[in-house]
């Protein structure tokens, strides 16, 4: 494909794209549209399930650690998340293969420590604010402080984090799908890179860009809607 030059490749690619034709993969000899339609749902499914588990675990651990204010929760949560942060996602994938765990569990293991660390520092900062101190002084219970005084302020950054976490999850999905032999979009991108398949990688980039843009825009909109609600 490249023999005709990059500029002419892009010209042909864009004019075909305008007609809804995504071209044909060089290495797999199949229409890219068919490949994407096959692989996208698998990766989407794995990412959504992985993110769900990771968000639940991170939110639970971060709020438990803060609510109890005990050194044990705090220390063990921090130790686990910094240990997981130090593992390359490819090694997590190989462990998942060894334990015969599904790909989404590996994604959640990679995403969880990043979410946990951010949520923990966000909650710590929220609890340090003066209005929380005032609420404490008024004798409010810890649940109602969390629900009505901490959470509303922490929600917009959390929604932004939701957008970012999609990018983290997809970044993790590449080595995980490649090594777990799960035929998704991440594996497709890896194969395209190894076989230098330009039409395929250009289209995968396009799809990933669109999905990330949509995720971030949705998170942004949700954040604005929420801010409008509270004002």
């Amino acid at each position, binding site marked *: 494909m490249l023999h005709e030059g990059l500029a002419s490749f892009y010209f042909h690619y864009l004019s075909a794209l305008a007609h809804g034709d995504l071209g044909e993969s060089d290495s797999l000899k199949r229409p890219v549209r068919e490949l994407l339609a096959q692989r996208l749902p698998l990766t989407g499914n794995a990412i959504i399930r992985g993110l769900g588990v990771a968000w639940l675990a991170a939110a639970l651990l971060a709020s438990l650690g803060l609510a109890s204010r005990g050194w044990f929760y705090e220390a063990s949560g921090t130790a686990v998340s910094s240990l997981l942060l130090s593992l390359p*996602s*490819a090694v997590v994938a*190989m462990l998942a293969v060894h334990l015969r765990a599904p790909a989404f569990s590996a994604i959640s293991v990679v995403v969880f420590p990043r979410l946990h660390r951010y949520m923990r520092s966000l909650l710590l900062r929220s609890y340090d604010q003066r209005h929380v101190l005032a609420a404490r002084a008024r004798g409010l219970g810890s649940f109602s402080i969390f629900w009505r005084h901490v959470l509303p302020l922490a929600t917009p950054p959390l929604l932004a984090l939701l957008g*970012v976490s999609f990018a*983290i999850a997809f*970044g993790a999905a590449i080595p995980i799908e490649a*090594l777990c032999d799960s035929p998704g979009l991440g594996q497709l991108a890896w194969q*395209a890179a190894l076989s230098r398949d330009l039409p395929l990688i250009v289209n995968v980039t396009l799809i*990933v860009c669109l999905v*990330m843009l949509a995720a971030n825009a949705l998170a942004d909109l949700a954040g604005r809607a929420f801010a409008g609600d509270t004002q």
Partner: protein
Amino acid sequence: MSPVQKVAALALCMIFALIVFATILVPAHYARQFRDVPNAGPSTVHPLGTDALGRDSLSRLLYGTRVSLLLAPAAALLSTLIAAVLGSAAGFLGGWFERIVLAVTDISLALPWLFLLLTVRAMLPLDVPPMASVIIAFLMMGLLGWQASVRVICATARGVRDSDFLLLARSSGCKPSRLLLCQVAPILRPLFYAQFWISIPLFILTEANLSILGLGVMEPMPSWGNLLRGFEDFSAVAANPWRLVPLILLVIVVMCFQLVLPSQEVIQ
């Protein structure tokens, strides 16, 4: 410095000393094959055993540590330099320049970083000599890893832009280039150090991921990622626990880098 930070810094110093003396300590060259003893266990000749091709594992670990621990800080230095120049200039000058820099940053941050590296690597030849693969990995991470730092530096530089000391310097006839170099840069210097330090563990992990996927440092040159490729057959590793040493070393180093600089909230 807290005691934990001291311990982490000490451990890092020891590991860096280890790679300086690697050439004296190693039993053999990293590519030399002992063909009579492939897959051997630990012995006095080969303290960590040999790999499937009969190469001494300790030598490969020491050389691999050297490659990874030189590659990541070098790439971090390059990316921090780019981020420092772009970020402080954008924040200081403002206007269309700032808008362009931030737009480019946002666009490239929209793609997951590993995916971006994969895409760029796909455009470059794969069958290159090992040394060239190290340089490609270094340039790729250095030239593509500055986006997150630019945003932080630009935001801080923007805060400095309207400060009184810059007004004074401007009114006494300081040129913009001198303003940037002698007035703005010293204020941002701690931020540069922090961004440099944050990038190192990230780049160590990225190199490992790329090399495991076969897109980073090429054989027979060892690096942490290459050494971890042996983990694909995990049951063999479970039977020979000494093969875990590269992973343990990597985890210790990355954790030390994270512990030395505790207050970081970079999401990547």
